[in-house]
């Protein structure tokens, strides 16, 4: 296996007594498109900022393209090869997108003028209007253009499509797939739009209160993950290591299983429970199951495992 594009080991960041990220283990392989999901304040942005040297970690270690962002010399080499679209897409208000492109290209040896011109046309960006006079959507497009034309090996995108209309979202996703995913570039993207994540990502990680609750292949979620709805007396909270989430919904108990749902259902049935439904679970439903406060979630950090094998302790 080649060196991970992004690797974190026990990564943590605290602001005072508040832990923003705790014991985060990520291993994102080159060419992966990794959706980093979580509610507001879950720690997604802090993680991305740590990877780019904007925030110093309190604990743990990290590598981006095999280099340590905590060392300035290595960080410079990382920044040459990594493109970043921040959540707050703020650029110099006085500059036009054309000026920003001229300014930006000087920083990056692999900058593509052709890609920049193509993106400006496809995203319908007014290149001669001052940035501060652009709509929020157009400002987001400029930030994306600067990142995508950079020729980066890794793209770190923090809610890249926020503020864009559905046509532009589609255009951005198409660009990402055609120009970046197809060329084997690594994309680490956070988004609240789970539909977009399902469209482009092959891996997802779900973060809650700074802890990684689940990491899995999307394909695996589609094929293996099942929602089991059960009715009965004295149902166990965590009867199996394959249970990703279990929550009470009125008189029913809803379990999300990472694998072997049929065997799990048979076990419960043998204990007298009634199995009401076994159905595939979508990313949205899985996400809601994991992050809803009243629901017991997987406690651990699934880390870089190929499947979510977290279990209740």
């Amino acid at each position, binding site marked *: 296996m080649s060196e991970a594009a992004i690797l974190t080991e026990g990564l943590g960041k605290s602001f005072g007594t508040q832990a923003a990220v705790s014991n985060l283990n990520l291993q994102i392989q080159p060419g992966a498109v990794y959706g980093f999901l979580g509610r507001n304040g879950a720690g997604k942005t802090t993680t991305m*900022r740590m990877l780019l040297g904007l925030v110093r970690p309190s604990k743990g270690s990290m590598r981006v393209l095999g280099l340590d962002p905590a060392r300035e010399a290595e960080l410079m080499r990382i920044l040459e090869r990594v493109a970043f679209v921040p959540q707050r897409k703020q650029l110099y*208000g006085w500059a036009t997108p054309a000026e920003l492109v001229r300014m930006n290209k000087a920083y990056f040896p692999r900058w593509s003028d052709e890609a920049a011109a193509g993106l400006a046309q496809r995203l319908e960006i007014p290149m001669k209007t001052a940035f501060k006079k652009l709509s929020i959507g157009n400002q987001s497009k400029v930030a994306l253009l600067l990142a995508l034309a950079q020729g980066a090996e890794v793209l770190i995108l923090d809610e890249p499509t926020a503020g864009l209309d559905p046509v532009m979202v589609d255009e951005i996703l198409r660009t990402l797939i055609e120009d970046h995913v197809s060329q084997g570039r690594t994309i680490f993207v956070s988004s609240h739009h789970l539909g977009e994540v399902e469209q482009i990502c092959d891996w997802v990680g779900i973060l809650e209160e700074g802890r990684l609750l689940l990491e899995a292949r999307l394909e695996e979620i589609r094929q293996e993950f099942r929602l089991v709805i059960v009715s009965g007396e004295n149902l166990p909270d965590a009867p199996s290591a394959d249970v990703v989430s279990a929550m009470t919904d009125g008189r029913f108990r809803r379990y999300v299983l990472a694998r072997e749902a049929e065997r799990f259902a048979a076990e419960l049935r043998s204990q007298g429970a009634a199995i009401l439904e076994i159905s595939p679970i979508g990313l949205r439903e899985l996400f809601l199951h994991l992050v809803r406060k009243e629901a017991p979630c997987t406690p651990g950090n699934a880390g870089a495992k190929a499947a979510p094998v977290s279990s209740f302790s």
Partner: protein
Amino acid sequence: MYAWKCWRESRASFIFFLIMSTAVALLITLAPGLKEQNGWWHFDRSEYDPSPTTQMVTYQILSSLGAMGFLSALFFGATASGSEIEPGTIEYLWTRPRTRASVTWIHWGVCVAEMLVVAVVPIYLAAALLGSLTRYWQMPLLLITPWIIFIVGVPMLGLTTLMTALRRSGKGGLLYTAGVVTVYVIVRQIVTVPLHLNLPTLFAGPLFWLMNNKPFVPLSAFPWGSLWRAVFLAAALPLAAQYLLKRAEV
């Protein structure tokens, strides 16, 4: 490219200071020749007595433009990279492959060049005009004036750069620098007169020396200590700002 961005952001202030300083310097130079006759103003070159006029113009230029180094330093320094933290453009800047130290010093270099032009060009233009009007080119005080204004201004640039990094905002940096300097000047004045204490001029000694060397007053000893302090602070203050920014998280 960052140098271009620094220039682009300080360009308006630079042009303003250059035009204002040039206009003031030229007006002072031409003023001795302006005469009113029958309600009309006209220019009379015969009014230019070489030595006295040169000394008078030198002193007036010095009095009028002495604060220009301070003011230009305040406004140029307020565009330092620390000023990008508050509006949020710092995320863009700090994710380019350039060290925070290089960004600090590139900004410093651009501003120093602008301050030099603002100090030298107007006064040397005035000196050239004055020389051609009086046919008298002995004007050492006038010729060293821009350099003193510049040297005294550069530590102020460093102080504003540091304050901008501390306050994480251009406006905050500008106001705090102005505040620190004003408070020091007021305290110095209060302490000096009633208590007869002579607080040091820190790095502004050369400027005070220039201002005290009025026409027909013998030259006093040049405050070399103050000059070296100015040079030291010119380097030390941005260095402190660089350290702060290197440690900063956004």
